[in-house]
C-alpha cells in the first residue's frame, strides 16, 4: 500500500490540488513521467517540495532527548510559598500552559497580577526578569489593582514597584476574532517587546462566550483550535502561558479537584501542564493543584492571593 497524499507533510492547498487532479497516493506520481504531468498544475518549487516530502519519513525523538529538554526548562516562583510548594517547589514553568479555574471573586485577577510581577523579579528573588503580556478580555486590569498587587508581593519600595509594573504589557480585546488576530500577530509582538516570558489571558472563556453565546458546539471547535495554537506558541517561544477559565457554577468543596470543573470543559486541561483551581473561603483562599503532568495534586489555603 502506498502512502496517501494526505499523510505527506505538504501545505493543505498542495494536497488538494494533487487530489483534484487524480493523484491520491505516492505511487500515482511515481509512475507518471513526473516533469510533464505535474508541471501542468504545479510550479517548479512545488514539484521539488513534493519529491522531498515523498521521501521524508515521520520522525521520532527519544524519551531521553525530551527529558533533556525538560531539565533545561525555566521556572519562576509565584512568591506564594504554599503555591510554590504545590508546584513542586519550583513555580510556574516556561514553555508550558497553566490553566487557572475559579468562580467570580475567587482571586483569578489577583493571581494573574501576582504572576506578572513575580516573573519580572530578578533571579536572586526567584523570578526571571522577564516581561509579560497581559491579554485582558474582561476589563480586569487597572493600574491601581496592579500597584496594590505589587505592594502585597512584598514590602517593595515604590521605584522598584514601578519597574515591575513597567514590564506588564496590556492588550484589551473584546471579541473572539480580536483575540485570534492578536495571537496570530504574536511573533511580531514578541520581537517588538523583547524578553517576554509570560502570557496571561484573563479570561480565555469570555470572548468566545460573548461571540457565540448560544452556540456551544462552535465554541468548542474554536477552543480546540486555540488550544493547539497556544500549545505550539508556548513551546516555540519558550513562554509560560497562563489561561484563566471560568468555573462551572458553583463548585462546592468536593469538586475543587475534579477535572471538568471549568465552564469550557477539559479543552484547556488537555494542553495544560498544570491546572490550578481557586476558591474563596470565609477564612481565605483555597488554591488547589487539581491536575498536573509534573507534580502530584494537592491543596492549600492562603490568606490573600
Amino acid at each position, binding site marked *: 500500500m502506498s502512502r496517501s497524499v494526505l499523510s505527506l507533510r505538504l501545505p493543505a492547498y498542495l494536497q*488538494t490540488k494533487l487530489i483534484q487532479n487524480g493523484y491520491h497516493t505516492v505511487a500515482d506520481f511515481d509512475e507518471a513521467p513526473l516533469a510533464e504531468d505535474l508541471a501542468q498544475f504545479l510550479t517548479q518549487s512545488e514539484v521539488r517540495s513534493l519529491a522531498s516530502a515523498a521521501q521524508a519519513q515521520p520522525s521520532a525523538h527519544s524519551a531521553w532527548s525530551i527529558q533533556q529538554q525538560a531539565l533545561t526548562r525555566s521556572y519562576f516562583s509565584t512568591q506564594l510559598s504554599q503555591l510554590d510548594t504545590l508546584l513542586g517547589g519550583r513555580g510556574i514553568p516556561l514553555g508550558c500552559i497553566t490553566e487557572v479555574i475559579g468562580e467570580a471573586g475567587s482571586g483569578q485577577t489577583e493571581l494573574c497580577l501576582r504572576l506578572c510581577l513575580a516573573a519580572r523579579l530578578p533571579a536572586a528573588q526567584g523570578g526571571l526578569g522577564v516581561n509579560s503580556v497581559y491579554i485582558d478580555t474582561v476589563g480586569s486590569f487597572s493600574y491601581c489593582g496592579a500597584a496594590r498587587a505589587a505592594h502585597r508581593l512584598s514590602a517593595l519600595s515604590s521605584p522598584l514597584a514601578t519597574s515591575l509594573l513597567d514590564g506588564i504589557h496590556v*492588550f484589551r480585546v473584546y471579541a473572539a476574532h480580536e483575540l485570534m488576530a492578536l495571537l496570530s500577530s504574536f511573533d511580531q509582538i514578541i520581537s517588538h*517587546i523583547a524578553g517576554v516570558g509570560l502570557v496571561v489571558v484573563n479570561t480565555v472563556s469570555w470572548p468566545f462566550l460573548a461571540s457565540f453565546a448560544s452556540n456551544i458546539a462552535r465554541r468548542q471547535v474554536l477552543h480546540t483550535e486555540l488550544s493547539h495554537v497556544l500549545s505550539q506558541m508556548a513551546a516555540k517561544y519558550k513562554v509560560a502561558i497562563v489561561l484563566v477559565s471560568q468555573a462551572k457554577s458553583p463548585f462546592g468543596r468536593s469538586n475543587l479537584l475534579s477535572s471538568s470543573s471549568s465552564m469550557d470543559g477539559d479543552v484547556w486541561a488537555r494542553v495544560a501542564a498544570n491546572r490550578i483551581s481557586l476558591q474563596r473561603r470565609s477564612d481565605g483562599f483555597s488554591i488547589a493543584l487539581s491536575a498536573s503532568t509534573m507534580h502530584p495534586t494537592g491543596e492549600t489555603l492562603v490568606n490573600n492571593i
Partner: protein
Amino acid sequence: MSTLTEEQQVLIAKCLAKGRFCSLQRVPSKRANQSICGLAANNVVGCEEPHQCLLMPYSEFLRSTGLNEEQGQLVWTLICRSTYPWQQHCRRATELKDDDVWISTGDAEIDQCLGGGIRLGSMVEVVGESAAGKTQLCIQLAISAQLPEAHGGLNGDVIYISTEGPFPVSRLVSMASPFVHRVCGEEYANSVDPADFMHRIQVAEFESMETMFHAFDYKVPSLLSAGNVRLMIVDSIAAHLRFNTSDDNTGQSSPIAFYKERSDSLVAMGAKFKRWANEYNCAFVFINQVTDLFAGDSGNGNDNDASLGLPSIADIDAEFTTMVTSKKAPALGAVWSNIIDTRIMMYQRRGLVQSEFRRASDVQGEAADQAPVEPPSHLLRTRRWIENVFSPWALNTQCEVVLDESGFQHVSKADI
C-alpha cells in the same frame, strides 16, 4: 471547493509583485487592503465579514480560498492587521495610571473600602435584600457624579434606568442639599439648588424585558455617544429577568429554555456594556436582588456563604445578633457574576451597639465585664454594612455605615 477567479488571482499577484506588504513599515493602501480582505471573505463559506475568517482553523481557511501558502499568509496577516492593529492597543501598565478615575460615594472611608469609589469603565453590581439601601446608594452616586471636579465629582451626566417602579425623585431632592452640604461644605451647598441635580439625570422606566433590551440596543448608545455620561444605573437588572413572566405563543413556557435565553441575553448585553464602558468612559452600576438558596450543596455553612459572597456570621463584630438565618445568593446566577467586575453587597443586621450597652450598664450599676445572658431588646439597633465582596482593584473589605438624610456615611470605630 471554490478558487479565486483569474481576475482576483491577478490582483493578488500584482500586490505581491509590488512588494507592498513585504515590509511591516509600509502600510498597504486601504483600498487594496479592503478588496483583498473582501475577496478572501467572499470565497470562504459562511463569512460575510473578513474578521470571521479568523474564527476558523488556518488550514481550513487556505482550503476554502484556494490560495497558496504565500498568498494565504499575506491575506491572513492583512485580515489580522485590520481587525486588531496591535501596535495601537499595546499599553504598558504604567501608562494606564490615568485610567483610574473614580466616582466618589461622598465618604472617604466607604471610598477606601471600595478601592477608591466606583471606577469609570467598570461594571459594578450592588446587591442586597430589599430595603437594604441599594437605591439610596445609587442616588448618592448620581449626585456625586454631577458635582464639579473641584468638589470631588466628575461633572458628568447620569442615566438612570428604572424597572421596579417610578424613579424616586423625592428622595433625590431630599438628599441633594444635605449631601452636598456634607461633602462640599456650606459655602458651595448654599450656592446650588437641589433642582440643579435633576437636569442632568436622564431617567427611563421599563416594564418588561423586551422594552429594556430594546432600549439597551438603541436609546442607551445614543445617550452615551453625547460623551458626557459618567454613570449609568440600572435599578434593577433582576426585575424582569428573574421569573418567566412572558408567555410563549405555544402557551407552554419551558424553564430550561427560559434560563438559556436569559443567559444568552445577559451575555450579549454584558459584552455590549463592557465595550461602551471603555469607549464612553463611564461606569455602569447594576442593582441586583437576592434569591433564596435551597439545600442542595451540603457542606460547611460558613464555606458556602463565603464562596457566594455573603459575610459569614462569625465575621460580624456584633456580640448579640439575632437575625433570620437566611441562605441567600445574588440573583441571576453565575453567568451574571462572571460579567460584572465588582460586587458590592449591602446588608443589615440587628445588633448591639457596644457603647450604648456600656452606658446602659453603668447606669444600672452592673459590672462592665459581666455580660447579661440576653441583650435588652431596647438596645438592639439595626446596623448596616457595605461590603466590597470582590473587585479587581481592592480586597474584600467591609465598612459599617449609617444612613441618614444625606445618604450613607461610615461609622467611626469610636461610635460602635
